[in-house]
């Protein structure tokens, strides 16, 4: 039977600890829920290390563990906690190979969710990592993608920021690109927005608006495929959707796509405002309906 993303992660963590004898670190790991069911029920003797609640120090301890030869998995329960967790990772681990020729590989599991959980716990915050040299960023939303990212990490000695989303944990399906010859619109989609964007693409197709859809798994390095540029150049308009603020990775990637093509690529992520807890005050990633409205507005339909 096919596994969900949740089961896939759990299996990867189990093997990382029990077979490969590395460690996983984080806060409140061995608690009810085992971080959304993605952690096996293991304890410190097995390599599941409970850190204290000191976020900044926790990130530093994991850097030290990586320097000592561990290939730590670091679990950050809400991506917004990276504001405290990532400083030492970004300023030491990411630079270590370049400055001291000492690799410091860490597999950071940053977990996103949103909806009534406020400005810190909500959304993805992968843009925080994006500007630092020496980091690789991926946002896997399917079981195969997750395995691929982990396998690549195990062959590499870089810091990996893995931007997860709880909304994908139940997913068993792979998400295929749509790449037709004469699109009206092209979507590039990151993280959880991929599910809504492909939904929108399918509905729009029924309404005779042809949409090409491209999954963005790797945010950094961002290797632009020739087919993407072709798709952008053949479209009237293109969009890049994200679950982080619009003034972040989405804008940077849109700029890179525009530099290589001759057409506009519009970044569309979270609005430039803080999320409140009530439904009216929240700041959510674009839904299929939002995306369809946006497309029709630009196409003047």
């Amino acid at each position, binding site marked *: 039977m096919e596994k969900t993303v949740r089961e896939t992660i759990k299996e990867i963590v189990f093997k990382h600890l029990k077979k490969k004898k590395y460690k996983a670190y984080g806060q409140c790991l061995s608690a009810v829920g085992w971080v959304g069911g993605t952690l096996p029920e293991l304890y410190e003797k097995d390599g599941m290390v409970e*850190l204290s609640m000191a976020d*900044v*120090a926790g990130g530093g301890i994991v850097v*030290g563990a990586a320097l000592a030869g561990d290939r730590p998995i670091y679990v950050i329960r809400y991506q917004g906690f990276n504001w405290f967790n990532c400083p*030492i990772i970004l300023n030491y681990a990411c630079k270590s190979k*370049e400055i*001291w020729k*000492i690799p410091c590989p860490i597999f950071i599991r940053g977990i996103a969710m949103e909806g009534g959980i406020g400005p810190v716990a909500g959304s993805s915050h992968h843009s925080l990592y994006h500007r630092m040299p020496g980091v690789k960023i991926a946002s896997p939303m399917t079981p195969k993608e997750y395995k691929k990212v982990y396998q690549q990490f195990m062959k590499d000695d870089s810091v990996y920021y893995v931007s997860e989303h709880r909304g994908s944990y139940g997913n068993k399906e792979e998400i295929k690109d749509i790449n037709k010859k004469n699109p009206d619109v092209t979507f590039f989609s990151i993280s959880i927005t991929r599910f809504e964007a492909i939904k929108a693409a399918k509905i729009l197709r029924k309404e005779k608006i042809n949409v090409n859809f491209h999954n963005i798994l790797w945010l950094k390095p961002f290797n632009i495929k020739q087919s993407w540029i072709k798709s952008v150049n053949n479209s009237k308009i293109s969009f890049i959707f994200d679950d982080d603020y619009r003034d972040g990775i989405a804008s940077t990637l849109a700029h890179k796509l525009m530099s290589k093509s001759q057409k506009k690529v519009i970044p569309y992520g979270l609005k430039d405002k803080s999320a409140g807890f009530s439904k009216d005050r929240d700041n959510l990633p674009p839904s299929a309906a939002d995306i369809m409205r946006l497309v029709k507005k630009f196409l003047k339909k």
Partner: protein
Amino acid sequence: MNKNQYLKKTFELAAECRYFELNVFKNVEKKIIKFPVYLSAGQEFISASLSTICKQKKVVPELFPQHRCHSIYISFGGDKKKLVNELLGKNDGCTYGMGGSASIHSKEIKMFGHDGLMGTQGPIGVGSCFVSKKPTIIFLGDASAEEDYVLASLGWASFKKLPILFIVEDNNLSILTEKKTRRHWEMHDVAKGFKMKSYNIDDNPLNFLKISDRFFKEPILVNVNTNRLFWHAGAGIDSPKTFDRYKLILKKNEKSYKKIDDQKKRMIDILWKKQLEKQ
């Protein structure tokens, strides 16, 4: 090694550090060294004593220093030529031209480089020791010890009973801001609060020897009251009245140590001269 041999060895290392730093001072003044340097003159007996004790114990510790680290590098056996080259901004320096003065490292002596953010060596050293379980020395200043993540990592090291020696090189100054204007507590008291053994000593080498039996058996913090002879960064003197332990020890033991002092001065001066000639 008896007490006299220990003191002699410590003085030898301190002399190498002192004359190395005096050469750096001179070359900063001449603008041959062009980036910020953090001179450790005045504090050299800390690393010299610890290195001598480690050799005596046949322990090769993992070292996590911070920016004021030339004496640590030299005391623990780092290649001095490579350090000169690093300070001259050459790519064949000990950190390939990337480290300058503040971020030097040496794989050979297990000294990890510092990233420039005060106190990060605290949690990083703790994490490394948690995995390796090897004897580890984390060097902090009285200022970097105040970083919240340093305090948190002390607590975790104590909880996990790691074989770490936390050395606070307490020169009482954060650039020029004195400790009394920043806090009303002491690091050795904080360590005790974390259920860790701690000591408050001055940088007399005998003080390290007295407590060395406990090193690397459990986490220990030693707050060492010391003096920075020169500016926080660069070549300059804050006060000519600053206490200088090196001069005091030399004066007290002139008969036996003057020869060592002369010999080390000559050796280090020649080393610098040769490396500068290769420029």
